[in-house]
């Protein structure tokens, strides 16, 4: 895997031991570019969603500005999502390991990770989130085009606007659900995860704990050497 190679010069850290490269610079940049565009669409979308959150539009320059940029930022997020897709789609394929892991997900939620089968670079939950965002953005894009140019939809085809509204809202809520869990797990629950998407490195202990198969795969060559 070209994007995840062992850091050649081990560094001493608080946890001790050497660090492993988990996310290349390119991967991290794409994650944060996507995060920025998603955050913009989230903030402005929530403003359009509820009068009680309309004040959020003020943060980005007011309602008309938010309305102008929301679709463009949505397009940018789509582009960044497709980039992440071509970057990560192989790592994100659901495998037999994931199917076994998903049956034991209860232990993951209850922090009894020792009962879980070892996983590769991403676990089943991360893969689910990836595919949720991927298919979510496709639905948001298609329905969003309808909402963007609602004036151009002939009145006789107005069921298309109703469909677009329903799909856009449902898909947005689904991604928000995934987003809440993603942020929670990346910052509070799985310590070291947030550092890894910023600096790119994890400790070997972290790698062995959370992604044992991946750890073994990326260190195999080095151990034999």
């Amino acid at each position: 895997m070209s994007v995840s190679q062992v850091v050649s010069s081990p560094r001493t850290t608080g946890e001790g031991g050497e660090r492993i490269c988990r996310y290349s610079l390119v991967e991290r940049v794409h994650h944060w570019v996507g995060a920025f565009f998603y955050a913009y669409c989230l903030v402005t979308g929530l403003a359009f969603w509820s009068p009680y959150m309309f004040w959020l539009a003020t943060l980005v320059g007011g309602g008309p500005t938010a309305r102008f940029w929301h679709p463009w930022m949505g397009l940018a997020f789509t582009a960044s999502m497709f980039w992440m897709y071509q970057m990560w789609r192989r790592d994100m394929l659901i495998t037999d390991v994931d199917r076994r892991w998903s049956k034991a997900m209860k232990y993951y939620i209850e922090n009894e990770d020792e009962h879980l089968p070892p996983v590769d670079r991403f676990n089943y939950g991360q893969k689910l989130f990836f595919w949720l965002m991927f298919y979510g953005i496709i639905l948001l894009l298609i329905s969003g085009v309808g909402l963007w140019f609602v004036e151009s939809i002939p009145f006789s085809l107005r069921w298309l606007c109703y469909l677009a509204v329903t799909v856009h809202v449902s898909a947005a809520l689904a991604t928000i659900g995934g987003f809440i869990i993603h942020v929670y797990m990346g910052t509070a629950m799985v310590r070291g995860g947030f550092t890894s998407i910023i600096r790119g490195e994890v400790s070997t202990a972290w790698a062995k704990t959370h992604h044992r198969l991946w750890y073994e795969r990326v260190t195999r060559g080095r151990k034999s050497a």
Partner: protein
Amino acid sequence: MSQATLSIRRISGHAGAAPGEDVERDYQVCKLIDTTTCIGCKACEVACLEWNGYSFTDTVFDNSYQTMPQTAWNYWNLIKFNEHEREDGSITLLMRKDQCMHCADPGCLAACPADAAIVQYTNGIVDFQQQNCIGCGYCVSGCPFDIPKFNPTTKKMFKCTLCVDRVSEGLEPACIKSCPTGCLHFGSKDDMKDLAETRAKQLRENFGIEKAGVYDPAGVGGTGVIYVLHDVNNPEAYGGLPKDPHIPWVVRFWKGPAKWIGNLAMFGGILGVTLHYLRFGPKTVHDPDEQNKQNGGHA
């Protein structure tokens, strides 16, 4: 509107009750359009453009008297012409002045997400406030009459105001003033409803137009613009006037239950992860190899 507050409540040194005291007044305004006396002259179209300061836009010729297919952001009032075949095979030209219906239950207002971009006055006029409009076009989805139109330059929505600027000064809307046949009337909703019913009865009893009736659709709570139609059972023949207009159920659901379901789900998600953290806390990193060594080294 301000005159409404100047009706007499008490009079000094006056024997007996004050004239007009406790009288219920109907301040709901209404436009009545009698399609049976419309001659399709389009004077109302011109008056609307003149009063509201718009110049003529390019018209579209489609082998009829039709000026253009539908109203536009700068063309709020349009007569819809329809060559209609009667049951006996003869042809009649149905003409209906199309504009905002000023619904009592406006779909545009229900769908709008922008604070105070659409208001409904006590007199029933539904008015767009362009300074608050964000140009999202949600009102298009909410309207059952295809009325709100988008100005691509200013990115704001526009429609008929029922000449709110004239009405607030005690004048009739510009279209009413220009009508040469008197097919347009303006007054209180009660008075217009009375006049419309009287006219429909006259058409049924004196002219043998048996299906004549008044169009004041209940699905949107009644409208501030009502029609007398030759055939009230077939409003679609008048350039697509919907038979039973109502706010689309998708818009009702989206702006009603869906909002609360979605908000509860989002709040529940945040609450859920918080509770999870309090109950289970963060995952601890442990090195299985180190543990195995400590436990005697079996893998």
